[in-house]
């Protein structure tokens, strides 16, 4: 992480190569002039500096925050509209500045694209350097290892060549890359994985962005509401809403079918407080085929357990009630009979919806209002549900007649466009509200026929998703984790061993041991040959015949590395 170019002071602009040869400028211009290449180089150096990268990182974190504060179009477009309406002054300005589409806004994109460029500008040269490092030998040992931050000196009973060979084997075993130099020294290095991991991490970050881009360009999302007993076959037109990526080929949607047989729903009935009524189970029992003509499969879809049909994942993301309503004319002909999905407005599933009877004559007929799974019977605060399950279901509807589809424009199936409709009232002119329980029928005033509430069905909100980039993104994300582990946990270390034959006088080179090494270091600067070990004199003379070698091990680490000293001590102990 540290080899990135880090100018302590801002890098001075470089002059273009051509400038020095051109004649000196006349007039007041005193600054050296930059050619386009010079400027480009300067800009590149600025952009790829660690200082800029850090600044961009911090900017990215700050830039991401507004997306969590302001409503986002990508999540809830209705909320955005509400916000702009409620904030007449600031709303439109914020909108222009992209605060409702933060993650697609030019300024947010600019931050992360600059960051990616900076990243690449860092990765490429570092990869080149690392490639060379990986194929080169550890550098030669410095002359005076005592000058390194970490070092130990001791005497070894044996020839220099012996101790160097022993050191080579030992370091090799510790997974060091080792060379024995001609000048009686050994150079060793390990922890190359640190830089490898670092590069893998940064490259993987770029790959994640590629994966996200592929997902964005070629993804598909189709949402559909399916009521119990209904079958759905996947074509572009059969979804309630379709969100394709810019390059998605909609002709190639997999033609699977889903038959929703039953939706099992449970809510918390025992716990008190805020947990009462919390959802406990949603399970859609479905019969599916991947292609027309296939043998139908019995499957279940529930939260956290999507199903995959021919490469498309299908999720259960919503649910609600679809009261089954029948409308007949005065002669008893059925004008309308179907389960009509109502959309839940709160946690107790107080739901709103509309029943549009286009075939009613002479005027088209419509009903709009509420479905309450557990109706609060007094309507003291209007029609509300007090529990999400269907314990006391009720429909509360007002009646409209007139032109349902003014101008033939498309409209939501859940609301009425009342521009060309008039409300049917009681005899006294007050609005007529019908309250129906399952099985009840209401006779509409003025020979308009009847409406009956037959039963309660449920609907499932299914979402079909294709994201061809997500596999790549996942693989890259896991690579970033591996790279990060290597970067932060592996230590890059260089260890040098130098061996010098000790002078012949045995009393000058006492037997080796931790105490000696310490004494030597204690002399601090004078380095060796302390004569303060009288207690060992006996041993020394006993071992006098063996040739002795003064060995120095020096260690060098890239960053603060508290373990390096310990490593050297251990090497010393193993060698003696």
């Amino acid at each position, binding site marked *: 992480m540290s080899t990135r170019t880090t100018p302590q002071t801002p890098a001075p602009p470089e002059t273009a190569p051509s400038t020095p040869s051109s004649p000196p400028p006349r007039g007041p211009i005193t600054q050296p002039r930059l050619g386009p290449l010079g400027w480009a180089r300067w800009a590149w150096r600025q952009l790829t500096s660690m200082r800029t990268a850090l600044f961009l990182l911090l900017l990215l974190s700050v830039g991401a925050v507004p997306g*969590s504060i302001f409503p986002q179009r990508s999540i809830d477009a209705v909320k955005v509209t509400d916000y702009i309406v409620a904030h007449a002054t600031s709303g439109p300005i914020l909108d222009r500045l992209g605060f409702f589409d933060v993650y697609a806004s030019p300024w947010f994109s600019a931050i992360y694209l600059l960051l990616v460029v900076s990243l690449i500008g860092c990765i490429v040269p570092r990869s080149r350097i690392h490639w060379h490092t990986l194929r080169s030998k550890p550098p030669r040992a410095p002359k005076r290892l005592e000058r390194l931050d970490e070092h130990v000196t001791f005497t070894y009973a044996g020839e220099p060549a012996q101790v160097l060979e022993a050191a080579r084997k030992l370091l090799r075993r510790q997974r060091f890359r080792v060379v024995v130099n001609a000048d009686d020294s050994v150079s060793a290095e390990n922890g190359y994985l640190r830089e490898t991991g670092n590069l893998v991490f940064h490259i993987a970050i770029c790959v994640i962005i590629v994966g996200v881009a592929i997902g964005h360009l070629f993804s598909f999302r189709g949402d559909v509401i399916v009521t119990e007993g209904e079958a759905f076959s996947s074509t572009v037109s059969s979804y309630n809403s379709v969100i394709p990526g810019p390059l998605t080929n909609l002709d190639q949607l997999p033609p699977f079918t889903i038959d929703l047989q039953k939706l099992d729903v449970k809510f918390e009935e025992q716990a008190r407080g*805020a947990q009462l009524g919390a959802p406990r189970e949603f399970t859609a029992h479905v019969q599916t085929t991947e292609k027309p003509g296939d043998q139908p499969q019995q499957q279940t879809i529930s939260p956290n357990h999507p199903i995959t049909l021919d490469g498309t994942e299908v999720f259960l993301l919503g649910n609600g009630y679809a009261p089954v309503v029948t409308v007949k004319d005065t002669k008893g002909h059925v004008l309308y009979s179907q389960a009509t999905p109502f959309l839940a407005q709160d946690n107790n599933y107080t739901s709103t919806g509309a029943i549009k009877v286009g075939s009613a004559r002479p005027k088209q007929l419509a009903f709009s209002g509420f479905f309450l799974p557990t109706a609060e019977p007094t309507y003291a605060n209007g029609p509300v549900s007090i529990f999400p399950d269907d314990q006391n279901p009720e429909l509360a509807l007002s009646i409209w007649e007139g032109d349902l589809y003014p101008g033939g424009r498309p409209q939501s199936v859940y609301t009425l466009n009342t521009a060309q409709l008039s409300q049917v009232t009681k005899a006294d002119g007050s609005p007529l509200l019908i309250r129906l329980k399952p099985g009840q029928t209401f006779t509409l005033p003025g020979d308009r026929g009847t409406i009956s509430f037959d039963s309660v069905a449920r609907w499932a909100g299914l979402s079909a998703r294709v994201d061809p980039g997500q596999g790549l993104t996942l693989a890259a994300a896991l690579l970033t984790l591996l790279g990060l582990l290597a970067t932060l946990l592996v230590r890059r270390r260089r260890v040098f061993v130098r061996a010098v034959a000790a002078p012949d006088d045995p009393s000058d080179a006492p037997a080796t041991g931790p105490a000696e090494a310490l004494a030597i270091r204690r002399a601090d600067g004078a380095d060796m040959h302390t004569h303060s070990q009288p207690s060992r004199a006996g041993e020394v003379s006993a071992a006098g015949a063996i040739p002795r070698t003064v060995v120095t091990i020096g260690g060098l680490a890239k960053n603060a590395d508290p373990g390096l000293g310990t490593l050297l001590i251990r090497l010393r102990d193993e060698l003696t």
Partner: protein
Amino acid sequence: MSADLSTELVTYSNLALYSAMAVFTVAMLLFAFHLAALGPEKMDRSVAASRPRKPALVGAAEGGGSDLDSDADLPAGDLPSGGGPDDEPETSLRARKMAGMAIMVSWLGTLLVVSSVVMRGLAVMRPPWGNMFEFAVAGAAAVALAFCILVRRNHWEWLGLFVIGPVLLTLGLALFAFYTEAAELVPALKSVWLVIHVTVAILAVGVLTIGFSVGIVYLVKKRREESPSDRRNFMETLPSAARLERTAYGLNMVGFILWTFTLIAGAIWAQKAWSSYWTWDPKEVWTFVIWVVYAAYMHARATAGWEPRKAMTIALVGYVCVILNFTLVNLVFTGLHSYSGLK
């Protein structure tokens, strides 16, 4: 499991929590007394405490112990154990006694919290971190347990006040502000990823919390080293600023790795539960923001020419984001992560 037994377990679980709070209060006081008793009587202590790092190897050579082996900078596995911290000032008997008692009491509190978590888990028959209350308690338990295990080996007695304090605060908030009835999970949370994603998130927050505490202590100590005061106090007996900085870095590094894992595991879970691995939900945004801020810290620290103090400031900002992510995002912003259990 019968409803009666379940209710009883929840009662005991909460009782254990209240007891733990009382016990931790005592532990915190003892740690405070420990710090007070640390106040040095001899001048040379401050010298020893802030001794530069370079001659550390001497100590290592002496007895295998030095500031090397009590360093949290790297997994301690490859370090020699044993051997007194020779370069650390002698702590007074009184201070050592206080620390010993404080650690004992902390263990008691920790066992109470852990048993509370276990009982809650048994009562609801699932990992007990499905809402804000449970997450906070589990997080506090993780921090306390980690601290109790590590305190002796790393000579972190001085840190006790700064760890047990936040733990106590968290438990208090959990019980009095976030308390949620024990209940089954909403379907979106019924997944093996609750165990993976949330457990690692708890660990990450725990480690980052200790890292934050050490970071604060580092800043104070650093200032003191730069302008030594005549009135000496316990600050002189704390490890040197450089060592505090390395310890905080080590903790933040581990926290950052865990946070990266949390982020990735969360994305995988989001794909399963919400059909898309990334939707810029407020929680996702803030998890991302925290990740980026800590990434900036790691870069700043690795950059030569950046003062460690400035880098540490970034890490502290990162932790503030962690706290915002847990409080503001759960309680104020609306998003898919609406699992606080509060209304």
